[in-house]
């Protein structure tokens, strides 16, 4: 029984773009307010007052278009993965589609699956293009995620995202998909009920049966199906709710730390949820060489993982220069104290 996901046509990434807001708050500053020390990361990104998941998606999408150099009217689907949609009812994807000039001849929808909504949109885009239904499809993952004040999630929940344009594999393709694999089980490790502001989580339950089980199973499933071993990969990007978890996954799989660090940004921008692996992969594409093979495994609570194997092509060298690099955004930063951060995150009830 074949478990690998592979479309009829070979498809790949024709354009990618990331965006990370410029504000940061240090974990130390959050810890000062709540009397906590010993932190999961150094600092995390915070959206500006006028930014939300939609505006983050727009800038990431525009960067992807700059690299793809295609007419946005040729995009037949725009799928937006997020868990911080500005509207409870009303698609965000239509706003982004309008802002990049892709309307009206396309399908648009919001995807939801905690932190893996972005890769879920990507799986769908691969199928849409790989079946021959569409020339191009765009998948975006972006969030301005919230943690309850004082909860351990508040130290990492951050803002950012990235966009990928999928097209049929040609010499213009920056990197193509060798295949993908999805693994899901019903695991209540993290949830938010309707009308609640902040999510809840099953504390210790989040690690073993949820994050580690899903990611390791997805990575192993993909490697078995493709007949690869960890040493076949030059880079690996795993969902990054903090720094420790993805490094532990690498250790379990036997992938050296050096292959994980280039795409591991959570220590300095936090957990961008639906954007997390998409932003990490964008940082890797900014530096990877033609021929490199990249392992990409997301994770979403609830729970599941999507795993992809990507091969970088020659076109990367020229096209990566056509839009700001991920590290250009990561290195652009202004620090907030907790009071201003609370205003940026809408934590004051007025």
């Amino acid at each position, binding site marked *: 029984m074949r478990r690998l996901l592979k479309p009829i046509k070979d498809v790949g990434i024709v354009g990618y773009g990331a965006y990370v807001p410029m504000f940061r708050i240090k974990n130390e500053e959050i810890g000062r307010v709540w009397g906590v020390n010993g932190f999961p990361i150094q600092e995390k990104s915070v959206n500006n*007052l006028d930014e939300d998941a939609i505006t983050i998606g727009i800038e990431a999408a525009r960067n992807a278009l700059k690299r793809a150099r295609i007419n946005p009217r040729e995009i037949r689907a725009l799928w937006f993965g997020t868990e911080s949609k500005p509207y409870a009812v009303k698609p965000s994807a239509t706003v982004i589609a309008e*802002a990049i000039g892709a309307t009206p001849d396309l399908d648009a929808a919001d995807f939801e699956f905690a932190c893996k909504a972005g890769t879920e949109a990507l799986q769908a885009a691969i199928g849409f293009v790989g079946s021959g239904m569409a020339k191009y499809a765009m998948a975006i993952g972006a969030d301005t995620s919230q943690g309850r004040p004082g909860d351990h999630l508040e130290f990492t929940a951050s803002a950012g995202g990235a966009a990928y344009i999928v097209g049929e594999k040609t010499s213009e393709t920056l990197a193509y998909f060798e295949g993908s694999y999805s693994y899901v089980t019903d695991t209540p490790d993290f949830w938010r009920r309707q009308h609640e502001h902040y999510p809840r989580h099953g504390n210790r339950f989040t690690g073993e049966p949820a994050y580690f089980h899903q990611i390791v199973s997805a990575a192993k499933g993909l490697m078995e199906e493709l007949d690869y071993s960890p040493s076949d990969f030059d880079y690996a990007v795993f969902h990054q709710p903090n720094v420790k978890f993805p490094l532990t996954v690498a250790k379990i799989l036997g992938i050296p730390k050096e292959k994980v660090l280039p795409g591991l940004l959570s220590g300095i921008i936090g957990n961008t949820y639906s954007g997390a692996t998409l932003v990490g992969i964008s940082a890797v594409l900014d530096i990877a060489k033609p021929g490199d093979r990249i392992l990409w495994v997301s994770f979403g609570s609830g729970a599941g993982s999507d795993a992809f194997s990507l091969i970088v092509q020659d076109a990367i060298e020229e096209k990566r220069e056509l839009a700001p690099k991920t590290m250009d955004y990561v290195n652009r930063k202004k620090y907030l104290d907790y009071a201003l951060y609370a205003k940026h995150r809408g934590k004051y009830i007025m």
Partner: protein
Amino acid sequence: MGRPMQVSRYWRHFKEKYRLIGGKCKNCGHVHFPKRPVCPECGGKDIEDFQFSGKGKVVSWTIVRNPPSGYEYYKPYPIALVELEEGPVVLAQLTDVDPEEIDFGMEVEMVTRKVREFEEDGIILYGYKFRPPIK
């Protein structure tokens, strides 16, 4: 609940506000923003959509401390006259910049951001703003 009249008034301008689409006269080639039915240069009535690059420079600016209703949460914020590289001058908010960093002639680029929210249950308006270029 919704205010249908107001929503439709904004909706008609989404393209212009989200993407900085103005007009170009097919007769004399003059570009303007926002798009007008008649060319301000030659009076021609054949005007096509024109996509501005979004690059420009600050020609004048001030800090808004007592904003109109719907903008209070963003105060204080800078507002500027930005001369687009194609010529027209637009009035817009600057974002991602501290007041002391703003200077005459400063290069800026267009971004689409939240401009205004109508109460907790109203629509969210997105539109162009300008910020210092990323690189």
